[in-house]
């Protein structure tokens, strides 16, 4: 039925709600809404309002429904909210459902055309924008009209909820890298809708933005960009990759920041190769790591599957290389544009035969940067591949963060012998062998190709070898090598980032988690505290796990492992590593393809705790 905005709820008498509500913007994929949504998020960020934008998009180039949720919160909570108070219903295909999802008192901003087809609710506010009519009034060339149409909702939102127009223009200018022409074209549409809304609509809802100082000194960026920037400061030399959602923007980030590492003559210190597949990408980074450079690939589940054989080789032949897994929802092609923590076990055990891969688990933007550079030091120090397991939510969405700290340690290239050092080693130990563990920490000394010493050369292989790197099928050689690799993993436990632990709750309930659930957990814990339920919290930041995880489990009566996968993979890993007395450890595993919400944690934990 048709809706007349003028006849809706009377002028609102509720208390104003300022800087504490969420939007859902429903559009069709490929309609240019990415720019509109980005403009809204960036504008709020510049108003000083803590904000987070999450893109819930389809695996499609054009046409399928896509949603973008924006949450503004004056207290700095930026986890996804399960229910948004406001919907911009610009997709006729989903509008009825989008409106149905609104809470009572919610707000629907839609087009006059879509308004005719959606089921009416009388407990929400409607604002109809005559998009076609407005677009006819603009001077936008017809070729661009469809692309800037979505700017009409930006204008309406700005008017209804008080976002200053001049600030929006600055954001547009930055978005178009300072080019005035496209910025002005978009801004003209925004201004038109802004003024039309002022002249024709009566505000009937309590929601409003107000300038505040909640983002002063903070930055906003995606986790993929942060990881890429970290890699730049970590000295990456060779990047090989194959395009795959949601990891592609990681390498785009490296490409974008590569100039920071160029020589004065604009020559590159970073080679970036788009390989023929993920398998070749893995081969390139393994070859580059073997030869002594810092190498990285970024991929997602299907790519990790293809890299399995190289991962096993690099583990066993002890070759440094960094692999980013920007996890998406599997199994198989799964939900390629939805977030997941479902590759934890697969990545940790990647490769056939015995062995564990070292994994770093960033939970926020700062850690994406930090692990971006630190992963190389760890990888070279341990002479082992390192997998950084991020996810689509962190990788592709805009996150608010404090600015990144400059690396607090010098670059660590690990145990590498040059020609003179090799001679000293031989003088001291009588011989040198690639896998000779003279320090007892499981880590041997390596030489690099090009080292001018007659004994520097050795033969690297994935087949059985002894400590001199000679081919061996002897059982005792095999066992000794495996024992040394296990020793190396034990060394790793102490070297890797330790868990984040918050025992301030002095509680009997412990929460264990990893990765991007962090924001939702922080908020849920505050809600629980308000209900009188105290919790402590441990966030695992690396695998193999630190012994402090065991201590945390032992020191709590009830432990919930919160993870965004279906099988409860971290719980399984805990059971494997810590099999005794863990009947009090229970999984809260979700895995619905979406960033976790505080309300799901709050409800689930309360239900299970009784």
């Amino acid at each position: 039925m048709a809706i007349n905005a003028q006849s809706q709820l009377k002028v609102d008498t509720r208390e104003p709600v300022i800087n504490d509500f969420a939007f859902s913007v429903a559009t069709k994929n490929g309609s240019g809404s990415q720019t509109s949504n980005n403009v809204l998020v960036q504008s709020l960020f510049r108003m000083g309002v803590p904000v987070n934008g999450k893109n819930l998009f389809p695996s499609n180039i054009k046409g399928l429904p896509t949603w973008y949720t924006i949450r503004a919160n004056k207290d700095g909570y930026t986890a996804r909210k399960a229910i948004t108070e406001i919907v911009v219903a610009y997709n006729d295909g989903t509008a009825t459902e989008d409106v149905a999802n609104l809470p009572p008192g919610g707000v629907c901003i839609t087009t006059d055309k879509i308004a005719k087809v959606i089921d009416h609710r009388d407990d929400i506010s409607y604002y109809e924008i005559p998009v076609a009519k407005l677009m006819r009034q603009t001077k936008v060339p017809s070729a661009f009209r469809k692309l800037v149409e979505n700017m009409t909702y930006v204008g309406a939102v700005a008017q209804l909820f008080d976002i200053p127009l001049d600030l929006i223009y600055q954001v547009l200018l930055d978005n178009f890298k300072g080019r005035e022409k496209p910025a002005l074209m978009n801004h003209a549409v925004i201004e038109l809708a802004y003024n039309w809304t002022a002249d024709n609509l009566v505000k009937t809802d309590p929601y409003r933005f107000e300038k505040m100082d909640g983002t002063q000194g903070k930055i906003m960026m995606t986790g993929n960009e942060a990881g890429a920037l970290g890699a730049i400061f970590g000295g990456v030399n060779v990047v090989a990759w194959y395009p795959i959602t949601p990891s592609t923007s990681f390498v785009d980030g490296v490409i974008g920041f590569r100039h920071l590492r160029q020589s004065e003559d604009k020559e590159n210190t970073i080679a970036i190769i788009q390989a023929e597949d993920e398998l070749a990408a893995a081969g390139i980074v393994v070859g580059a790591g073997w030869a002594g450079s810092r190498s990285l690939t970024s991929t997602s589940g299907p790519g990790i599957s293809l890299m399995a054989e190289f991962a096993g080789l690099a583990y066993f032949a002890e070759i440094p290389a960094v692999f980013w897994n920007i996890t998406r929802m599997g199994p198989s092609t799964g939900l390629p544009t939805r977030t997941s923590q479902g590759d934890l076990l697969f990545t940790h055990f990647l490769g056939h035969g015995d062995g564990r891969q070292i994994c770093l688990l960033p939970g926020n933007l700062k850690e994406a940067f930090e692990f971006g550079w630190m992963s190389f030091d760890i990888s070279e120090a341990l002479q082992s591949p390192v997998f950084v397991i991020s996810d689509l939510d962190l990788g592709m969405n805009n996150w608010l963060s404090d600015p990144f700290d400059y690396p607090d340690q010098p670059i660590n290239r690990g145990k590498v012998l040059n020609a003179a050092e090799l001679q000293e080693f031989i003088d001291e130990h009588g011989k040198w062998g690639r896998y000779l563990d003279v320090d007892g920490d499981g880590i041997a000394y390596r030489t690099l190709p090009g080292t001018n010493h007659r004994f520097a050369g050795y033969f690297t292989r994935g087949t059985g070898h002894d400590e001199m790197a000679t081919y061996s099928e002897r059982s005792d050689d095999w066992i000794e090598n495996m024992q040394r690799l296990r020793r190396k993993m034990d060394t790793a436990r102490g070297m890797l980032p330790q868990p984040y632990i918050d025992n301030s709750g002095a509680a009997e309930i412990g929460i264990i988690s990893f990765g991007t659930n962090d924001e939702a957990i922080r908020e849920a814990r505050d809600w629980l505290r308000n209900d009188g339920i105290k919790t402590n919290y441990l966030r695992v930041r690396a695998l193999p796990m630190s012994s402090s995880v065991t201590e945390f489990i032992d020191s709590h009566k009830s432990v919930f492992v919160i993870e965004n996968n279906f099988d409860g993979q971290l719980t399984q890993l805990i059971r494997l590593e810590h099999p005794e007395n863990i009947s009090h450890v229970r999984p809260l595993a979700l895995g619905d393809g979406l960033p976790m919400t505080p309300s799901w944690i709050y409800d689930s934990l309360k239900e299970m705790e009784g």
Partner: protein
Amino acid sequence: MPPRTNQIGLARNEYRGRPSTLCPGCGHDSISNQIISMAYELGLEQHKIIKMSGIGCSSKTPAYFLGGSHGFNALHGRMPSVATGALLANKELACIAVSGDGDTGSIGMGQFKHVIRRNVPFVYIIENNGVYGLTKGQFSATADEGQFLKYYGTNHMPAIDLALEAVIAGATFVARSFSGDAKQVQALLQAAVRHPGTSVLDIISPCVTFNNAETSTKSYPYGRDHEIPLHEIQILAPDYVDEREEIVIGDYEAGDILDVEMHDGAYIRLKKLDNDHDPRNRRMAMDVLERSMREQIFSTGLIYYEEPRPTLADTEELVATPLTQLDEAQMRPSKAVLDGVMQKLMVS
């Protein structure tokens, strides 16, 4: 009497590796021997060379030559990507890579084509025997159509010609040879190692255990009886002095000799035998290969050669210093640079 040494004072046996574990008489061992001779003759420094291989009988051989070099026996069919990474990391390294017909023609076809496309500068030797040895005698993709093998019967699939695939992929140096023709293998190796681009050597290298019957075109008896070199090859070092001026380059009539100048000033001297093959002509190269396949002619020699195009490191516009040797300042921008990036992202 002290052993004879080369220009850097090394004896030939100092270029050897560990003893071969291949079957006695294996064609691959002859090729390893020629690699040893080539390095010795040219006075190569072993620490500046890396040896790469995939998986299979052929891929074991890098352990049997140039014991002073770093080597990497990688994954089945994936040697090209590993070599690519290593040579990007350190572009000053020379690389001799060994693969087989299974390693290249089946599991590794994709990487084979793409490493050529990127023009990674290395010598890519395919030790081609038409059969899988380590798994006991299955046909490979280069086996002749209609060929019979004891355990697997008749091969009904047409053969893939890896030299032709190399030309099509854009290789700038493509040769075919026979491991029984030591002199030609030696000359081709000496040329290939100088060539700054992907040099593909498809060397028919008989498997004495599984595929050496006279009826097989990959056998010793067949090779000995049927090899028809396109030309005799001689490599003239840059400092070689002769009456080259008298030779009209490219003119077969003038003495039936073709001198192809290489990037470093060396010449590949081709003495014409009984055909007009000019390896600088891509169309001719493809014709020779297609005719050889169609008419079962075992043509060997330098099939195709062109002026090297930019290597991958050139395309990537890398700094002169190998990436493995950058100093801390080249690896990590200053704090001011990070602060600058952060400042731009902040609310002003």
